[in-house]
């Protein structure tokens, strides 16, 4: 409390520096040892580490070295840039040690105090992370193209339900695979809501990649503030997104920065939204047509929706319930060998480290998918991009059809006429 009065007395520029420090303290913990102190070296993390399957990387040894006081060496070696931040280790740690989060904090140190340049680890020469960084600047006001909005959908810049599109309009630069995601999601929302949905022309990136990948917390905070203001300005109370990373960032990280974020805005993934509408009897699922009967589909759980959500969040259970209903109608759904919290990584997290090792990870994921079905459904635009990128190189996994959840669901949803009072129409 004392701090706030202090800030008020200071000049404008100093105030903003203090202000950003205030925010930084909420998401940055410089004392790594404090975060690791409970580790008792059971080495489970190293056993499950996904990265360790393709290169030598032993989290428990890294932890031990930090605890023994060689933090400086570990950090200056730059080895932590390699971690996928996939959270498989946390999932299995008896002491709940969040290694990925420690890596995140360490990245901030490596970048700012050890002057290491993360650019060399960023895929696509950093074009997408640079876009996020540019978007964070106060003098930039994006002007997103809204031509993709389907004709039958009404959008507006004020209202109570916002569809957060995310960075897909920029991914279009190299990826066409992700085009259908916003189109299908918005179609679903418009069909069900039957009123204009808020889609913002000046929407900015959620900042996920700067937060987890590059250790650029300053830009992340700037983006978060921009988003907060935009959401407030448009008067929305519900934010719906089809992006795994955006969802998690809004749900878990933004409330750390802004205490009232979750009171003001309810963040929902489109999975949750569809689930609720099914439960409320507002929508029904369609039985398959003749042609669809043989479609075997499987689901790739994005890490941000499985291992990265608080245990109380049962998003993936809800998803499985939707799939159960689909199965009841005659579609066939099959889990991959590794699913839910144990799902394998898509290989490239936050645009970091796209290399032969990540290729091996992606390849094993697609082999599992091939075993389970002909269509792979997932809910993360990045997973779609990285996995379909590999398909271009390997013929044996080329046949798998990779689809986003909304894209998959858009034609399977049937809106029940409100005049019918929710009665099932045959």
């Amino acid at each position: 409390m004392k701090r706030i009065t202090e800030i008020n007395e200071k000049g404008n520029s100093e105030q903003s520096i203090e202000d950003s420090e205030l925010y930084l303290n909420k998401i940055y913990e410089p004392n790594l040892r404090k975060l690791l102190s409970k580790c008792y070296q059971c080495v489970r993390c190293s056993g499950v580490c996904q990265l360790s399957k393709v290169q030598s990387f032993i989290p428990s040894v890294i932890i031990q070295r930090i605890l023994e006081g060689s933090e400086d060496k570990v950090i200056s070696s730059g080895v932590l840039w390699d971690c996928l931040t996939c959270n498989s280790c946390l999932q299995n740690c008896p002491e709940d040690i969040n290694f990925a989060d420690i890596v995140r904090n360490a990245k901030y140190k490596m970048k700012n105090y050890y002057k290491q340049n993360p650019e060399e680890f960023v895929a696509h020469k950093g074009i997408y992370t640079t876009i996020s960084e540019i978007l964070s600047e106060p003098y930039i006001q994006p002007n997103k193209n809204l031509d993709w909005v389907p004709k039958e959908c009404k959008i507006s810049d004020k209202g109570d339900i916002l569809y957060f599109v995310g960075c897909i309009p920029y991914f279009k630069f190299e990826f066409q695979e992700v085009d259908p995601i916003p189109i299908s999601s918005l179609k679903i929302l418009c069909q069900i809501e039957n009123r204009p949905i808020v889609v913002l022309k000046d929407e900015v990136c959620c900042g996920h990649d700067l937060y987890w990948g590059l250790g650029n917390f300053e830009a992340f905070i700037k983006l978060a503030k921009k988003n907060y203001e935009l959401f407030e300005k448009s008067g929305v109370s519900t934010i719906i997104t089809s992006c795994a990373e955006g969802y998690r960032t809004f749900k878990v990280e933004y409330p750390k920065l802004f205490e009232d974020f979750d009171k003001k805005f309810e963040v929902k993934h489109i999975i949750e939204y569809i689930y609720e509408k099914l439960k409320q009897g507002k929508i029904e699922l369609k039985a398959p047509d003749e042609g669809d009967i043989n479609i075997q589909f499987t689901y790739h759980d994005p890490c941000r929706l499985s291992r990265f959500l608080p245990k109380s969040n049962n998003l993936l259970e809800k998803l499985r319930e939707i799939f159960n209903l689909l199965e009841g109608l005659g579609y066939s759904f099959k889990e991959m060998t590794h699913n839910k919290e144990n799902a394998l990584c898509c290989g490239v997290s936050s645009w970091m480290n796209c290399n032969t090792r990540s290729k091996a990870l992606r390849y094993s994921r697609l082999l599992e998918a091939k075993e389970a079905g002909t269509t792979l459904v997932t809910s993360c635009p990045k997973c779609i991009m990285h996995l379909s990128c590999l398909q271009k190189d390997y013929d044996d996994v080329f046949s798998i059809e990779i689809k986003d959840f909304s894209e998959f669901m858009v034609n399977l949803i049937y809106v029940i006429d409100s005049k019918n009072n929710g009665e099932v129409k045959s």
Partner: protein
Amino acid sequence: MTKAVSKVEKEDFEPYILVFCCNWCSYAGADLAGVSRFQYPPNVRIIRVMCSGRVDPAFVLKALKNRADGVLISGCHIGDCHYISGNEYTRDRFERLYNIIIKQLGVNEKRVKLEWVSASEGKRFAEVITEFTNEIKELGPLRK
């Protein structure tokens, strides 16, 4: 005298402009402009690349992020590229950069430009630079 002062005030803003020149045409064109003593504004910093095709769109974005007010990419005329088709790739890539990224970022489209300048066009090089610098001056700094 007073006239000169007001002119200085008007053009107070000195933009940072980054220019990528391919080694075989545009850089030689820049050289020729120098040798022939054609004047052009000193706001530009030239980076020589072997071919305009070497310029990754990420370079342009990074320049904009790191204080550049304008970025110019310059290569051989279509058909003249030392590597046969390097500049055709540049042209296609640039179009996408322009339409998909620059426009949607809300950065004024005039700040990023593609121009073909051959080794014999020293005069044109100076003109292109002068024109571009004036355009950027008109727009003012990117960082407000």
